[in-house]
């Protein structure tokens, strides 16, 4: 294995991070939107979200990627491999985020909502000022956990011919007939990516704790 091979795997890592981040950035608010639809029991839309979540959640990422890339053109929706990859990962992470946000919303204390209503806060303001800042903190550990799972399910998009960490590593292994070094490099890269997520979560939690401490 040469330094060029390491560089190739590193490029795969850049791609993994890029599509993971794209799907997380879109999937977080999307999941929150779906959770709010379920929480407010908006008729019809509520049922659609239930069906969406149960179908997508049951589908392996590989299957979903193939479905989106090969089956959607049949109904006139076609997209490039990268877009299809991002759509796949976004749809998949959004379903899990929906359930995480919904759990946080359902365990939100109703007396706080009631006092917000009594103080003349309309629905949107109640959510923005009272509910959201609190569920963000209660949902954060589960959301970060889902982000790391998301990074780890990203190799599925290799079926679309895209080169991520795992695909880059296996290509190096196939060429050099020595698969161990490239996969060690791949593992190290995955660990670093996940560590960044976990560290940012710790940072946010520590900052919150310091805020609370400072107010004592």
């Amino acid at each position: 294995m040469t330094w060029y091979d390491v560089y190739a795997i590193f490029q795969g890592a850049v791609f993994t991070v890029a599509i993971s981040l794209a799907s997380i950035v879109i999937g977080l608010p999307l999941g929150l939107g779906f959770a709010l639809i379920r929480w407010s029991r908006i008729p019809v839309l509520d049922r659609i979200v239930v069906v969406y979540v149960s179908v997508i959640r049951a589908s392996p990422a590989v299957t979903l990627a193939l479905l989106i890339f090969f089956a959607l053109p049949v109904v006139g929706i076609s997209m490039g491999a990268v877009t299809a990859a991002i759509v796949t990962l976004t749809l998949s992470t959004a379903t899990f985020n929906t359930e995480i946000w919904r759990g946080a919303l359902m365990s939100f204390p109703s007396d706080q909502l009631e006092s917000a209503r009594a103080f003349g806060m309309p629905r949107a303001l109640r959510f923005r000022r009272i509910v959201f800042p609190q569920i963000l903190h209660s949902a954060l550990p589960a959301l970060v956990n889902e982000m790391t799972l998301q990074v780890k399910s990203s190799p599925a998009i290799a079926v679309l011919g895209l080169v991520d960490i795992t695909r880059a590593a296996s290509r190096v292994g196939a060429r050099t007939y020595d698969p161990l070094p490239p996969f060690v490099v791949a593992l190290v890269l995955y660990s670093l990516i996940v560590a960044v997520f976990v560290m940012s979560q710790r940072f946010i939690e520590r900052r919150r704790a310091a805020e609370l401490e400072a107010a004592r």
Partner: protein
Amino acid sequence: MIPPMDAAEAPVVLAAHGISKSFGANTVLTDMELTVRKGETVCLLGPSGSGKSTFLRCLNWLEEPDAGSVLLKGQRIGVRASGNIVMSDGELAAIRTRIGMVFQHFALWPHLTVLQNVMEAPIHVQRRDKAEVRREAEALLERVGIADKAGQYPARLSGGQKQRVGIARALAMKPDLLLFDEPTSALDPELVGEVLAVMKDLAREGMTMVVVTHEMAFARDVASRVVFLDRGRIVESGSPEEFFTRPKTDRAKQFLLRYSAQ
């Protein structure tokens, strides 16, 4: 201090007519009537489950009554003036800014400091000037005796302190009327006094208040009128002297006997 107005002449702040409410097959309120004039402190008394709290919550439409009407200074709450259409969330919110509420379990917002709890609605609902609201909020905290806790989060406060924040938060809206839903029922006995003292001051200063309470001494000493409920109906209503010394109905006599025995 504002001298007490003659109750019979003061303008009507709140009028509730024919309020009825059921939860499923369970009838909680039947044909309730209440008129509150400016500067009055009306205490709603009655055994647990008599519908006091539900009735209080109907007054600002936290609970939607099945029948009847509530008017705040002549303006209908919950139903649009033009016909029998229930108000939207936003319309209800606008009218609720004029009615303050203090909750049994405080219902403070734990992610905001004491001062932020008090400033939240005036700034974000009433959209008043932040510096002015801050000055007023600090003055209110001073008034309820917890100015030194302004920067703390509610979790660090005792029940009595939390409830005083709850009162300051309600006052910050400069409401026409204050509703108290059993404000001392969740407190340790030795903390009840500090909250009642604040409420007593408010009553004396001419705040218009409707108070659901089990504190008979407070009702006797502070109320301008007591309303006694049983099983969702008004059984008796009158001056505290009359009610506590010469109750007219057997039901009220029974109720008072139980409290004097304690």
